[in-house]
Every structure is written in C-alpha cells, then in structure tokens.
C-alpha cells in the first residue's frame, strides 16, 4: 500500500483509539476535576465494564445487537452503582485525604482485578459486534485528468469501528450538554469550583461526590463496552487504559474536560499512527515522554489553569 492510504488507515485506527480513550479519560478527569481524587482503580472500572458486557451478551445469547445494546445499558449502570457505593463506604470515610485515597484506590484496583480473576477466570472472552461489515475506502491520486478516486487494496475499516467513533462522540456531546445545560451539571460545576461554598448554598456535596464517582466509572465502562467487540474482555485489560488516561488527563489539564478531549485525540491518533508505522511500544514511550515534557514546560496541561 502507498504511504497516503497507509497513513489514512493508521489515522482511522487512531480515531477509534482516541474515541475510547476520550471516554475513559473523561471519567478520570470528571472525578479529579470535581472531587480532586486521583482514582488509581479507574482502569478496573473499565475492565469491569468489559467483563459485564461479556456476561450480559453471553447470558442473553440472542442476536449480538440485542446483547450489545443490553450491555451498553447494564454495564455502565452496574459499574457506576458499584463506584458510588465504594465512594460512600470507603472514600467518604477517609475524608478524601489525597494520600489515603491513592492507597485506598490501589487496594481497590487489586480487589477488583483479583475478584474478577477468581470469578471470571483468566481467559480473554470475545463479545460479538452487533454489526461488522468491512467497508472499502477510496483514496485520491493525481492522474492524467487531475484528481481521481481509486480504491487501494487493503484500505478498509469495519462499520463497527466507525460506529465506535461516532458513539463516543455522541456520548461526549451528551456529557457536555449534561454538564452545561442541566441543574445536576450546574451543581457539579459549582461543587468543582468551591465545595465549601457549595455546601453553604445547600448542595449535598457528599451525594454529589458519590454521583460523580459513579459517573466517572460509568464513562470508563461505556468505553469498555464499545471496545470489547474489538479487543475481548480480560481481567488484566485495565492497565493500559489507566496509563493512557492519566497521560491524557495530565496533558489536557487536570479537570479540564475540553483539554481531555483534545489530548485524547492527540494521544489516540499518534498512538494509532505510530503503532501502524512503527510499534505500539514506541507509541507508549512517546506518549509518556510527552507527559514528561508537559510536566516540565506546562505543568497545568494544555487547557488547565495554573494553581493560584
């Protein structure tokens, strides 16, 4: 394949990575932005979303589309409810103290991971995509009669991967509308800016925190349900999304939702392109290097605010 079509293919793969990453990192960013909690167990909520998606789809055993839609509803709800419960029973009790929260979420990471291993087993489990038509894509070339379309061999993508990108965009737009146009979103933003004053104006901050922690986990679970027909569910699958989410959130600016989306696009697209042309390991190395550079030259991230 020529370089141009090859690059286009890499960028399409990168767009899928970016879409999933944006959802997962958005969950981490919302939690940090509102609660100032660094949730080390975030990747395990992602993993749980994938495992529950497999369980729902395989239990229903009907048409893959039915199982997938059921998983897309049930997995985020269950994972979100579990996270809210963890917030109430663990994080609230330690007062969201930063150090203790990190230690607690590390413990939670292992509990969720090993609990899944003990119940779900060590095998990777597939979930059938609801549809998976391979779509050949055209490219342009300069011919004798000017620009013309042609169909390079191997330049194609599945309809499901296009759906993943579109679905992630729809979910992120819905999240943005929720945060900016609803009363609950307004309460979350007020709590994010000054939790003490939020309480002084009647906002039940403890309930808001539980809701936000649940929402963050549900976003990770949604990302996982979307990705599981491509990657398979596995009890160790939470590691990479956690690392990449932290990279995205730091580059985008801690707590900045627009920054998180921009950074997810940058990291996801570069991951796709570098993985195709070189290797996935190099992509991770460069992403980690980018974080180091951001921390040195712009510690607040692309769109984050400098601490007062």
């Amino acid at each position, binding site marked *: 394949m020529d370089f141009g079509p090859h690059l286009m293919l890499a960028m399409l793969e990168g767009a899928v990575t970016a879409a999933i990453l944006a959802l997962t990192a958005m969950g981490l960013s919302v939690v940090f932005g509102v609660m100032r909690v660094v949730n080390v167990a975030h990747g395990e909520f992602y993993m749980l979303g994938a495992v529950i998606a497999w369980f729902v789809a395989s239990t229903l055993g009907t048409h893959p589309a039915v199982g997938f839609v059921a998983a897309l509803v049930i997995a985020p709800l269950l994972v979100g409810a579990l996270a809210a419960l963890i917030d109430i029973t663990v994080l609230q009790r330690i007062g969201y103290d930063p150090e203790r929260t990190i230690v607690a979420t590390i413990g939670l990471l292992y509990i969720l991971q090993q609990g899944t291993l003990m119940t779900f087993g060590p095998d990777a489990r597939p979930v059938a995509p609801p549809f998976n038509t391979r779509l050949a894509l055209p490219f342009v070339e300069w011919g004798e009669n000017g620009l013309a379309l042609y169909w390079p061999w191997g330049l194609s993508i599945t309809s499901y991967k296009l759906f993943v990108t579109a679905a992630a965009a729809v979910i992120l737009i819905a999240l943005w509308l929720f945060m900016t146009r609803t009363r609950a979103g307004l*309460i979350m933003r007020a709590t994010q800016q000054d939790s003490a004053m939020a309480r002084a104006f009647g906002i*039940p901050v403890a309930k808001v925190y539980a809701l936000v922690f649940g929402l963050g986990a549900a976003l990770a679970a949604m990302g996982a349900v979307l990705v599981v027909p491509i990657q398979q569910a596995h009890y160790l699958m939470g590691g990479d999304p956690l690392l990449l989410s932290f990279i995205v959130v730091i580059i985008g600016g801690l707590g900045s939702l627009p920054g998180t989306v921009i950074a997810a696009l940058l990291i996801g697209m570069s991951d796709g392109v570098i993985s195709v042309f070189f290797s996935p390991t190099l992509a991770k190395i460069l992403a980690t290097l980018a974080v180091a550079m951001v921390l040195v030259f712009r510690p607040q991230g692309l769109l984050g605010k400098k601490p007062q």
Partner: protein
Amino acid sequence: MLEIADIHAAHGRVPTLTGVSLRARAGEITCLLGRNGAGKTTVMRCIMGLLPITAGAIMLDGEALHTLPTEQIARRRVGYIPQGRRLFAELSVAENIEIGLMTCGEGRDTRDWVLDIFPRLRERLGQRAETLSGGEQQMLATARALCLRPRVLLLDEPTEGLQPSMIEQIRQVVLRMKAEGVAVVLVEQRMEAILSMADHAAFIETGRSIETVSAAALRADPTILPRHLGV
C-alpha cells in the same frame, strides 16, 4: 433569633474560639467586632457549619444549628456572604444566582426581586463571575445570599476594597434587609459603617467575647471602639 452560646472551636489542636456568645434578633443588625485575628470570620464559619464547634451551642429560633450539616443550615435560610466573596468564579452571573435560588427552592419571583435590587447584574447575566469588577462581584455575592430569602444574613467584611458608591449601595441593601425583619450579623472594619448601621456591637478578642453593647452606648461613649479595636 440567632443565639450563639459560649462556643469553642479549634483548627486541629489549636483553639481558635474559647467562649464566644452573641445574639442576633430579627430586624436588627449585630456587628461582630474585633482586631485582626480575633476570630470574627471563624465565628461566621462556625454558624454556617463550615468549622465544627467543640463546645457551646448555636440556636436559630430554638433549633440547634450546630448539629446540622452545612447544607441543612443553608436551607434554614441562613444566607452567607463570606470574606473575599467566594463566588463560583467560572460560572456565569445567572448560574451563581441559580445556585442561590436552588438552596431553598426559590423561583422566578425571587430572581426578579434580587435583580431589581441589583439591576446592574441583570445586564451581566451571561458574564462569568470572575470577569466582573470588584463591586459587581460583591453585588453578586450579596444577590446570591439574598436568593435564599434569608431569615439570617451573615456578612463578612462586605465593603472591603470597594469604592464609596458601592459601599453605600451595600449599606442600603443591609438596611433594607433589616427593615424586612432579617437578623443581620455583620463583620465590618469601617467605623462609620458600624456606627450608622449597628443596633448592637459584640466585641471579641483572641477568640473570646469580651463585651456586647447597644448602638446607643457605642455612640455615647467614644472610648469603646478605641479601647477594643485600637483605632
């Protein structure tokens, strides 16, 4: 009536209040006075439940406030205008007002009432709070508290850093609240504001109440303020 009876509080192991008492009656302005670091802001924070008291009691019309969480205290229509305003800086003027309205389930009538008091805010509804001038920010902080239709209004240095015309506007609003039967607790440094507004003055020193006098006594005895405040 808001009644504070011998409250004690501490930051960690360091005691900050060691016996403060105060009464704020409906339709009266009680000034809480003391030198810098005396504990005035700490008293305000204790009333709002933002700092727990370790002894004593804070009662509002016979109900114990000190046992309630902060959000429940606000819902008893206790409006708080903190020192430094502490607006939700990245929210718009309209959103800051909406937060105030939500506290006690107030609606459009209260919104219009508040915006009639501060018509300049009506022109700035879509603007982010952090982009307002200092005076406009104080208006917004006051408006946000008024959205509760407060029974008690706590103002912590509301005229700090404001120009004279703005100070007069805030003073008029405080007097209007008094006329409407609100119990006002005011922390203020400016002597003319204290003498022109206060019905009572409660002095505290290093976290303890030392004297409470009426406004008449304050005006009649010019030595009281210098004695306690060193001015």
